[in-house]
């Protein structure tokens, strides 16, 4: 194992995870106003009507698949009668279906974002960086699946990548597990880790406000006039750009 192995498969993922957690906590604490998906549906809906649900439902399936493949040890599934062959069949077929939805959806979304003038003009630099790594992660993952699982002999990532991830979470990192993983899987993992690093600073934070509480709360919400610290004591916050009085400006 070289220093590169430690850097790529231990240091970098831990750093990314740290930024992911701390970044989200800080942003949640200090940027509630910026915490939104920043929908562009009012600008354009003809393409979004197809692209957005395809991508989102696809990626939800992909996330579910990854959770099963990465976090449930092989032996556990086998205990429940899910053999290697059965798992491989399920993962490849369901995975391919999800991948087609996701990739097609993402293609529509990127096409729309690039070619609809209204939408392009509200796209920030961070949006573009995020799109690069999101699209990269999905592309490399799909490529790996197509190359090794569909046309190749099938690669058992549950013997290498999955234990490696679990080793990170149990704080006994074992980079040697990743050394011999096929190239596109490695690339997929690295772009994904980078995406996690960027996550708290992008619009992707909207994932963590999935409104599941809506299913159980009463329809009409009442709140009291909230004024815990006395009128006017709250410092001004983002959203309303306050115009300063001339006197204060001249003092500075």
């Amino acid at each position, binding site marked *: 194992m070289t220093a590169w192995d430690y850097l790529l498969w231990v240091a970098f993922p831990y750093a990314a995870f740290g930024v992911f957690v701390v970044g989200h906590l800080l942003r949640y604490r200090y940027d509630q106003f910026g915490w939104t998906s920043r929908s562009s549906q009012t600008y354009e809906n003809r393409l979004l009507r197809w692209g957005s649900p395809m991508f989102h439902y696809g990626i939800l399936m992909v996330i579910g698949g990854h959770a099963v493949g990465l976090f449930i040890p092989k032996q556990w599934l086998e205990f429940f009668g899910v053999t290697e062959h059965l798992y491989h069949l399920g993962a490849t077929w369901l995975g391919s279906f999800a991948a087609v939805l996701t990739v097609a959806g993402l293609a529509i979304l990127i096409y729309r974002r690039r070619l609809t003038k209204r939408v392009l003009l509200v796209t920030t630099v961070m949006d573009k960086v995020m799109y690069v790594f999101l699209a990269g992660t999905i592309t490399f993952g799909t490529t790996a699946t197509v190359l090794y699982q569909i046309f190749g002999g099938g690669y058992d990532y549950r013997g290498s990548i999955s234990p490696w991830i679990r080793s990170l979470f149990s704080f006994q990192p074992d980079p040697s597990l990743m050394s011999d993983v096929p190239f596109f899987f490695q690339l997929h993992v690295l772009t994904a880790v980078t995406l996690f690093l960027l996550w708290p600073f992008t619009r992707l934070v909207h994932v963590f406000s999935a409104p599941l509480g809506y299913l159980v709360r009463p329809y009409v919400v009442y709140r009291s006039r909230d*004024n815990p610290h006395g009128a006017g004591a709250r410092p001004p916050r983002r959203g309303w750009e306050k115009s300063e009085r001339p006197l204060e400006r001249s003092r500075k």
Partner: protein
Amino acid sequence: MRVMAQMSMIMNLDKCIGCHTCSVTCKQVWTNRTGVEYAWFNNVETRPGLGYPREYENQDKWKGGWVRNSRGRLQLKAGGRLKKLSQIFNNPNLPQIDDYYEPWTYDYDMLTTAPAGTQSPVARPKSLLTGQDIDIKWSGNWDDDLGGSQETAAQDPILATMSEKVKMEFEETFMFYLPRICEHCLNPACVAACPSGAMYKREEDGIVLVDEDGCRGWRMCVSACPYKKVYFNHKTGKAEKCTLCYPLIEQGKPTICSETCVGRLRYLGLMLYDADAVLEAASIENDQDLLNAQRACFLDPFDPEVIAAAKAEGMADDWIEAAQNSPIYKLITEYEVALPLHPEYRTMPMVWYIPPLSPVVDVVSNSGNDGEDARTLFAAIDKLRIPVEYLAGLFSAGDVVPVELSLRKLAAMRAYMRDINLGNEPDERIPNAVGMTGESMQAMYRLLAIAKYEDRYVIPKAHVETARELDELGCSLDNDGGPGMGGPNSHAGPHNGGDAGPAGPYGNTPGMPLNGTVYNYNEMVGDSPIIKTRPTTSGRVNLLNWNGSGAPTGMFPPRPAAGSLA
């Protein structure tokens, strides 16, 4: 019985001249920002017409509001909770910005920077979304004053439901203006549709607000509101809506649209209602019974039982008194002239309207008859099906009876007061014919026609005393006379001869320094007229203090002593 107070508005449509002052002042105060250029929290639409956004009343298309399902229970017209969540990635009922209009500006720069040429330079319209040239084909008031209505009026969703076909020909046309703000409903569909729970109805005054920090931009409120009065800020990605100017209301002042209304047609006041009765009332089977069902939710503020229950809920005495003096209570319950806009949406709206008698009066007068005679007007109300049916389509789910009753009262008031104003013997049969007395008719006349400021706006201040007291506890030593006296918050301000310290924007106040905002204007200013008229910037002169004679203090530098001039 759970007594709650609702700050409500009534607009007297006969007085609306369609000047759009309310819309403009509202825009200047609330939506003069990027992202909400297209949004008008207050708009005035010409009816018959498409409204803003276009055809917003067509709920087959937009799926706003509530419906009563086959089990007799209320559900959002766009679907239940699961369906809503399943559509979160793309809201199928969301209006596009083009349904409102694409915001634009003009290339004014061109007028001054164009090179000399044979033609005058033109300021071309430019889209505020793309910056490109734009071909303006629609906007918020494209059919103002029935402009272009030959083309568009047939799409008016109310006309479509009427049994008689209205010919939009000049001589048969009637029209009136309908100013609209958020309805601050008792059973708000937008609040019910918000997946994040960021929209809420305030317990104290029923104002419906969006918590901008909690909003995650799912856009369900925009489509759920059948009045389309929640707007999506396309820059911040958050929902925004009419706030009923709550910072003003909390200070006991009317909303900006009311304050600046040229026709003085808006009324603001409290309505007490039984919050436990709302859901059942909104679930009543027949659409046309909804009006009376909502009226039945309102509570009599003079009833000792209601007063006791309100006090048990913690309602302050001045609020109960304000509810008793409320012009809203008088117009909805006592005189029964005000009607809700589209009760059939089942949201229990709380901005009500006094339907306009003018379409009827105009027809009567134009035909050479006496437009102020009670019997002629009564007959015309019975006979003129088109305006009355149209008004019923707006205000009573198509039931002409409540509209007729309201119009007959207005007609009776017109006729009865004419006799009095001309010095004739008042004819008591006229008020009796509409179930009123001469006395109550004159009281209604004072409220509707004289419409004194203090009668139109009966707004109790929000109670913040307790919060302020708590705030001051921690720093009582800084107060005048305390050991901390003489600090930055001492009372020695310029207006009482002291040094000009870093005072708050409205002068010095005891206790913690406050950020001067409209929220705490009254608290900071107190009762001192001196501070109230003091300029917010030192070194400037407030001409409001000047009585017109002599030179205002501070306007000119002090005169040099005689002889010192070089």
